[in-house]
């Protein structure tokens, strides 16, 4: 082995003493040992990912099993169609990723670039849809426990895409412009390798807006036809608009109650009543509140508190579940789980871009495809986590 080449920190990873691959690190004997080490390392990393997510699954299981009525109430605000669509998108990206590994192993460079580009595009669509889901909930006040806003109190009128969406879309928009310019320049210069990178990246950035568009379309379609969500969005979109009456909290809360009972039908009303009635802690808490309230002046009581007192213990309806802030806990867990998952998608997009650059430089072959395989493993575990998140959050009532 040449001593010069083995100097650590200078030529690491470029020791061609064994002649097989320019990427064989000096401390490995052959490409297979290197590949196996990397693969073992990646599986171990996936183990840490599983345990990392386990904390949130634990929180989910805990609070779901303790407060099932909250889950029943809150999960109706999630848009199943969008969830299912996103599941499909992620599954498709998994397919293209797995196909990409195959291409790398078979030296199909063109195919690898296309597969990676499609995977990136799917990731962007996923994030676009997610952006719609998030901003829609933010507008409705469906926020984590500390800032959750009751769905039975007057609030802001919501219509069309919110300004949050513009904020979230700023970076993808910048990406479209930047990658567009880069793509144009590389085409003009005739730099094939650069244009092979810039093109897919431009498509990826555009895919985000495709996702946003699809999300908007589904969201409004859902709001139009589906009873569950219509109920949720009722005081914002529908006939029961109560905005502008902040002082009239009493009436609004009552109105919300009736509305819930009417639209919701037998399947949802029965359960929460039984559940809440079965939980004496809530009852006594409610009683305390009522008993303590006569002594209080209105000086510190906000409109919200007044409305809270109006909800009588006897009528333990969805409005009560809502008021108690338990629904906020659901959304805390929802945002934590999907948010951390979305961060993983973003991280995956960064390493996919790195792969794309290397793929255009023809780095991969049947001896050296480790990076594609490892990123593939990572991408699949992100998909795998979503496979569980989708039914747990969106489907199970």
């Amino acid at each position, binding site marked *: *082995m*040449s*001593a010069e080449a*083995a*100097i*650590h*920190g*200078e030529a*690491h*990873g470029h020791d061609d003493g064994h002649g097989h691959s320019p990427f064989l*690190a*000096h*401390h490995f004997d052959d490409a297979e*040992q290197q590949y*196996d*080490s*990397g693969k*073992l*390392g990646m599986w*171990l*990393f996936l*183990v*840490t*990912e*599983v*345990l*990392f*997510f*386990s*904390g*949130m699954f*634990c*929180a989910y299981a*805990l*609070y779901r099993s303790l407060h099932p009525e909250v889950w029943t109430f809150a999960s109706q605000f999630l848009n199943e169609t969008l969830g299912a669509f996103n599941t499909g998108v992620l599954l498709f990206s998994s397919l293209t990723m797995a196909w990409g590994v195959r291409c790398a192993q078979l030296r199909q460079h063109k195919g690898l670039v296309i597969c990676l580009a499609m995977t990136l595009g799917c990731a962007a669509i996923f994030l676009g849809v997610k952006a719609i889901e998030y901003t829609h909930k933010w507008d409705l006040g469906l*926020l*984590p*426990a*500390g*800032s959750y806003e009751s769905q039975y109190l007057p609030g802001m009128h919501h219509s069309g895409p919110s300004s949050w969406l513009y904020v979230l879309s700023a970076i993808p928009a910048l990406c479209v412009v930047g990658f567009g310019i880069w793509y144009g320049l590389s085409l003009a210069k005739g730099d094939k390798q650069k244009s092979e990178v810039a093109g897919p990246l431009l498509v990826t950035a555009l895919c985000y807006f495709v996702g946003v568009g699809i999300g908007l379309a589904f969201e409004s379609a859902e709001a139009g036809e589906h009873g569950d969500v219509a109920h949720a969005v009722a005081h914002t979109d529908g006939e029961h608009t109560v905005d502008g009456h902040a002082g009239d909290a009493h009436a609004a809360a009552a109105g919300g109650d009736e509305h819930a009972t009417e639209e919701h039908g037998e399947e949802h009303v029965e359960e929460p009543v039984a559940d809440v009635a079965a939980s004496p802690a809530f009852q006594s808490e409610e009683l305390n509140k009522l008993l303590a309230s006569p002594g209080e002046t209105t000086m510190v009581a906000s409109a919200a508190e007044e409305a809270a007192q109006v909800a009588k213990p006897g009528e333990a309806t969805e409005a009560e579940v809502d008021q*108690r*802030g*338990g629904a*906020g*806990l659901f959304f*805390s*867990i929802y*945002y*934590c789980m999907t948010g*951390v998952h979305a961060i993983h998608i973003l991280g995956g997009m960064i390493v996919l871009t790195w792969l794309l650059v290397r793929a255009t430089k023809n780095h991969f072959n049947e001896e050296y495809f480790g990076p594609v395989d490892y990123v593939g493993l990572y991408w699949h575990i992100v998909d795998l986590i979503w496979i569980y998140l989708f039914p747990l959050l969106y489907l199970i009532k």
Partner: protein
Amino acid sequence: MSAVPADSARAQQEERENFLVFSKGFLSWALTLDHKRIGLMYLIGVMSAFFLAGILALLIRLELMTPTNTYMNNQTYNQIFTLHGAIMVFLFIIPSVPAALGNFLVPIMLGAKDVAFPRLNLCSFYLWVSGAIFFLAAMFYTGLDTGWTFYTPYSTTTQGPVVAATLGVFILGFSSIFTGLNFIVTINTMRPPGMSWFKMPLFLWATYATSIIQVLATPVLGITVLLLAAERLMHIGIFDPEYNGDPVTYQHFFWFYSHPAVYIMILPGMGIISELMSVHSHKSIFGYRFIAYSSIAIALFGFLVWGHHMFTSGMADVTTIIFSALTFTVSIPSAIKVFNWLATMYKGTVQLNTPMLYALSFIFLFTIGGLTGLWLGALSTDRVLHDTYFVVAHFHYVMVGGTLVGFLGGVFHWWPKMTGKMFSELWGKVSCALVFIGFNLTFLPQFVLGSRGMPRRYAQYVPEFQELHVISSIGAFILGIGLFVALGVVIHSLMRGRKAPPNPWGGATLEWQCSSPPPYYNFATPPRVNDPYDYTPLEYRDAERGWEYVHPPTTDTPATEPEPART
């Protein structure tokens, strides 16, 4: 064989190619991928963290000389004990043995050129550095007063940089995960031919077990601190009773990591002792397989016992009893190790030098630490002793008497290999004696304090306890002096130390087959893999003041002399 010219040529080459001086300049260290240099940088890093936290410990002991506020107010005291605990745990004990000594030793003990992922290794070091800077900056900026455990809801309501500190812990956690991951892959895929699992040095078994815990447990700490940060920033309400969250659940999350982390701290120390006891008794290790299996058993059982930190926290009775039962299972493998170490000395040739004295101190102190765990595992006594000074003394006996003393023993043992310099035996022994006496004087009285009911984390206390606190404080200063002497010994050896032979102690593990310090490529020729505890072919050479193989254990390997350099 023209011995003299060949020898001097070899010496010159060794001089030129040793990893410390082979390439020069700041960047050659800062960007190095060499596991030995990274190990040394870690060593300096963790020692600085230890120095800082040690000074804080002395400040605490000084404050506790009197029952009232001596020179700190309560708030300062709370911040200082938080800093002491957090720095010691996250910046010193967890990375001390695995990251500093482990990085240096794991590849060499395997006869490999480097760890499996050198770049990840460097990345892990910089994560540690940035995590440390972040963490310290956050805590010194306004002062964190949550205790190192960040219990909710105190940590969600107190003023202070909790979010920044938890992010620091998050980064440090990743550093720890990457180190563990690297070692598992290295030990799995890079063992040399002939080194089967049961021909591995026991230090590697201990490191392997530690790495398993690092990979499995640390992510849970990651998500816990992340959720805690979210709790503070967005009030997600999972741990905060204000929003019907559950503080006891936080404790489950936290201890699911932090109890196994106790074994991240002690297992590598046990691995060091296994090596030291065997080498310095010049005696093959007793019950190799029992020690190896007990390391793995401790690592796995360690995941089942986290609840014993919560016996009074409001856990349900049934969980409490189950956790108590499981807790006792983990005491058995530790006992097995101690008995095997003792039996190793039987009929051996015990050399009472500095590393061996540290190892014997370890056994003494760890035995106390382990046995006092019996009171805390048993439910009725733990109800009384929980959160008192008894617990403080117990875990210091394990963490300081165990890990720190083991770490110091390991540093002295491998110091000649790492730096190529011998240290002063006399002063080394003096440091060991001071550390031993000072440590016992500090923490033995705390057992009595605890059983009499002195609660922990008290800035002020009732006057009855003063006598014992004063004794404890005096001990702490003796301990501090002992540690400074130890520091002086190693610094002196760097400047004045005599050149170390390749094998000063007569060790049979592979690291003693390369020169001291090793060349940057570790081994000029692939080392002979033999039983790591077979000392029969080793012979002491007065001229070199070191040990050499007299008859190679296998016939087909080349002569002892490495081949001349191939350039």
